[in-house]
Structures are given as C-alpha cells and as structure tokens.
C-alpha cells in the first residue's frame, strides 16, 4: 500500500448543489516520491490540496483518501497535520498579533503532544529555528513579527518552507509555491524544498508552470483537468506541456 492513496475522489463545495470540482481523482504517492500535478486554472488542483489538508468548505461525495492505511478524511484538520500532512499555501495568510516564534512553537508542540512525544525545550527549539531559518535566508527579525505580517510574497513562501522544515511532515503538498516568486526567490525556495526530499517523505508539487520543475525535479508528472488526472508520465511530460500547453487535454475532456 502506498503512503498516500487517493482513490476515485469526488468532491464539491459544501452546501452547493452545483457541479463537482473533483470527479474521480486517483493518485498514489510512495515515500521518497515527488509528484507534480499540472493543469489549467480551474482544473481542481487547489481544491485537491485543501481537501487533503481538511478545509471545511468542501464535501467529499465519493471515494477515499488514506495515509498509511488510515482514513484521512475522517480526521480533524490538526490531527492530519500531526499525522504528517503539510500544505504549503499558495497565499499564506497574515496572522496579526501572533508572533511567528509563538506560532511555530505552538504548532510543533501540538503535533508532538498528539504523537505522544515530549514538548521541545526552549534551547532546542531556538537552535532548531536558527539552523533552519538561516538556511532559508530568513532574518531573525521576521520571526519576532506577527506571522507573515508585512512579509513580501517571497518571504511568505520562504516562511512556509521554514514551517515545513521544522514540522518535518510525511507528505508535503506545495500549492503553486512558485507563484509570485522572482528567479532568485524561486531558487532559494526550491533549494529549501529539495533539502527536505527524503526517502521517508512524499511530495505533491502543484504548479502551472514547468519552470518550478527545473528546480524541483519530479519523479512523476500528472496532468489534471476538470477534476481528474487525465495523463501521467515522467518528468519529460512537463516539458511537453510547456511546449504544447493544455489545449489538447481541455478539448479531450470537453
């Protein structure tokens, strides 16, 4: 059994009688694998990432998602995080008044507590944050401020990767992590992600553009359209998409 198994997932916006956004999506991610999901706007990529993280605005109407054989869809949002699900947000939100250090520590300790581990000591925590933030070029002053408050787009994305590095999840879902990044920031963020690649960890990298995949080289590339995966292949598929666009898939599915 794969670490993450998404099987025939159907979902719609909660309370909306209208159309399904996910229409039978299936995907398996094994430890150590990096899967890229590409597709046009509105194909359901972000919806997939939100449903995996547990956002309550969606209703799963059919199908299943398991993490290490456990039913992910039955778990609370924070329980999923403690089990190792991490969503790097496309638009990380500003949390005024909650200092970044307070937030990081609350998150780490909450996860440790749920896993039956002891809380991290203050010196250990400070050492951990210093080491991980240094590698990402995050200035210590940023850590004293409110979470993401007044950060540039690139700083917010780096902060997401810092959280990922500190929380050490099993499965990372990166939702358009490249959006709003200039070339230099893209490099820093990609290096941060690559440093987290490990034989124990799976990743789903959602992106519009092949550009990111030059830096984070995937093992598999999937094309998503209208709520399902319509084609899967190796990393060369990304180059083909870059050359030809999504038009052929959109026609096929219409």
């Amino acid at each position, binding site marked *: 059994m794969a670490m993450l198994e998404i099987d025939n997932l159907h979902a719609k916006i909660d309370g909306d009688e209208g159309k399904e956004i996910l229409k039978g999506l299936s995907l398996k991610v094994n430890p150590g694998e990096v899967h890229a999901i590409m597709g046009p706007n509105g194909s359901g990529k972000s919806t997939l990432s939100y449903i995996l993280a547990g956002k309550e605005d969606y209703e799963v109407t059919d199908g299943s998602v398991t993490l290490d054989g456990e039913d992910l869809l039955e778990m609370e949002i924070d329980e999923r995080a403690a089990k190792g699900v991490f969503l790097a947000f496309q638009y990380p939100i500003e949390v005024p008044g909650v200092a970044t250090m307070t937030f990081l520590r*609350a998150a780490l300790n909450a996860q440790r507590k749920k896993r039956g581990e002891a809380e991290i000591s203050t010196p250990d925590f400070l050492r951990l944050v210093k080491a991980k933030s240094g590698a990402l070029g995050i200035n210590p002053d940023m850590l004293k401020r409110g979470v993401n408050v007044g950060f540039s787009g690139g700083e917010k994305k780096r902060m997401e990767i810092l959280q990922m590095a500190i929380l050490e999840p099993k499965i990372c879902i990166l939702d358009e992590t490249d959006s709003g990044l200039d070339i230099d920031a893209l490099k820093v963020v990609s290096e941060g992600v690559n440093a987290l690649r490990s034989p124990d960890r799976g990743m789903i990298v959602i992106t519009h553009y092949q550009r990111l995949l030059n830096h984070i080289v995937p093992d598999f590339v999937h094309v998503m359209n209208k709520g399902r995966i319509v084609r899967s292949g190796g990393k060369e598929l990304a180059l083909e998409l870059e050359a030809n666009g999504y038009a052929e898939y959109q026609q096929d599915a219409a």
Partner: protein
Amino acid sequence: MNADIRPIRTPAEQALVSALGSLPETGGGRLADLRRASARAFVENGLPHRRVEEWKYTDLRNLMREAVPLASPATVARADAGARLLNGADLRRIVVANGAVVRELSDLDGLEEGLSIATLADALASGDAVLGQLGGIVPARYDAALALNTALASDGLVITVAPGAQIERPVHVAHVFAGDIAAASFARSLVIVGAGAHFTYAESFEGPEGLAYQANVATEFVVGDEAHLDVVRLQEEGAAAIHLATLLFDVGRKAQLHTFGFSSGAAVARTSLYATLSGADSHVAFNGAVLVKDRQHVDSTLFVDHTVPGCESRELFKHVLDDNSRAVFQGKIVVRQAAQKTDGRMMSRALLLGDDAEMDNKPELEIFADDVACGHGATCGAIDEDLLFYLRARGIPLKEAQSLLVQAFVGEAIELVENDVLREALVERAEGWLRARG
C-alpha cells in the same frame, strides 16, 4: 387636575431610598449639600431603565431588582483572603474592603516625596481642604450610579501628587467584597495629579463567586497641566455581582491621560467614563478589553467632551463574547465650537465566540467646530475561518488556535498599557480567561 405622581419602585429602589432616608441630615457645607442633592435626585429619578438613552442597553432597573442591605465592614482576615488580584507585583497596594479602606493591609508608609494618600473618612473627619475639589466634575445629565455613590459613600481614598512629582511605583487600590451576605458597598475616591507630575493608578475589583453583592465605585481625577496619568482597571468581580463604576476626569493643558479597563467579571457591570478636556493640546486615550461569557452583561460607556482646541482623543475597545453574554459599547464624543483642531478617533471591535452572544455598539459624535478630524468605527464578527484553518493546518487544535487568535485580538489593545508590570498582568489575566474556557 394634577394627579399625584407616585413612582412604582422596585424592591431595589425601595431599599436604596430607605437607605438614603436613614442618612443623618446633620452637617452643613458644600459636601453635605451635595450628598443631600444627590439623594433627592435618586429619590426622584430612581434607577435608569431602557427609555433613558444613556442606559438603553443596560436596563439597570430591570437588572438590579433585588434589595440588598448596605455592606458592613469586613474583617481584616476576610479582606486579606479575598484580595488576590495583582498581588506580588511591584505596586503600592491599598486594600478597600466593602467600601472601606483596610489600613492593616495597606502600604501607606514611606510614601514617595510629593505623594500623599489619605482615606476619605479621615479627610472628611478633619475637614481636609482638598475635599473642596470632591464632586467638582459633574456629568451633564443625572447619573443614578454616581448619585447613589455621592450620597452613600463614606470612605475611599484621597490621593494627591504634588506638581512635578514623578511617582514611578504605581498605586494599586485593591477593592474587594468580603462577606457572606449579599450587600451593597460604596467607595469614593479623589485623585489629584499636579501640573507636570507623572503618576500611575491601578485599581482591581473582586469578590466571592456566588454572592449577588453590589459594588458601586466612583473616582474623580483632576489631571493638571502637562501632567501624565495612567489609569489601569481590572474588573473581576464575582460572577453574580453587580459592578457600577463612574470615572470622572478633568484634563488640563498639554496633559497626557491614558486609561485601560479590563473587564471580565460580574453578572452586570457598567463603567461610565466622563472626561472633560478643559486645557488645550492634551492627549487622552481611553482603551479597554472586555471578555465575557455565560450570561454576563458588561457595558462600557464613554463621554468625552472636547471644550478647548488642539486636543487628541483615542478610544480602542476590544470585546470578546462567549456563550450568551452581552457587551455594550457607547462612546459619545462632543466637540464644542471652540474646540478647533480636535483630532478624535474611536474604534470598538467585537469578536463573537458564542452563537447567542450580543454586542451593542453605539458611537456618537457631536461636532460643533468646523476644523476637526474625527472618526469612529465599529466591527463585530466571528473568528476568521481562514486564520483558524491556517493555524489548524499546522497542527494547532481548534481551542488553542482560537485562544491564540483571541489573545492577538485583545493584545492589540492591552499592549497600549504603558506600565510593564500592569501590562504583563493584564496579558496574564486574558490568558487565564482563555484557559478557563478549556
């Protein structure tokens, strides 16, 4: 034909009228006249109800129906056991139990140069000249809580800070209700801060949880020219209590006045704050945090009167309402014709945690000058779902995520408290309130 108007009194009103009737009619002078006038005003008007605009959302006649006797003095031991708030902090502590100063528990020795503290009872007995200023700040309209306080209070504090004195250590007046019988206590204080002086005044309120006692406190503050006064209040009365507070300020030229009210106690609490800006170019800020739950009702009402040019006033109130609680914010800012170049900004924000909680916001601006910058705002809403999702997606459980966000919400107001010791104490009280939510 004129029919006799016979007011129908509630049991509480009747008890208060009887208490007023039993006051000694002896004594002449201004203060005795003031007491008698206040008593008469109450006998005529009684408790305010919802048809009195200033009490529209806090129908005191209805909320305070039961008659309670006037409180008798507390024993030192009971007062000592009851007064726990802000203990241990580096503050000069004075304990007022059931409306009377408890000398045995009060730190009245070794006062800094320029600081003088007397009890109101002593000042009255000795005919202290400073009492000429008591009752000097008068609200524009009849205020029942203040009238009762003026008529019935017999003790409290008279604090004077000499011109230019810089008193670093805050004075903390710890009000406590100690007793087994629900009763009504009244305390009246006068704080005079001389020109150019710097002073921090803190007061706290507490009492037994299940007892329906009533605490009525009124304090007048005279803030001299270029003086700097910080006032911090911590209202954590017992859950069945009624707390009525009146704060009166007269603010001089180029003075700085900052108040902060933290209110999480009592079944019914009303704080009326009257400020008259009577010297040009002063800066005042009236801020607060209200945290309520169950069926609590907490009302913060401000009247700020700009009578002179060039003053700046700021109000920021944060309300957090759980369960079926109710909070009221009324802020009235008057800018008189002479008060050109006034800069006034008022904001009240509420976070509703309980589905049945109610927030009433009533900002009022009355502007008669034409060259002013005044604004007000009020918001009311639930915790932002996107913020909650973000915190929970990192593994923080719902209640803890809510607590972090609520703390951040009230923190924005609490951080305006200048004194470190008091600010940290308030942050700690807010955390305690959130922890008690579970």
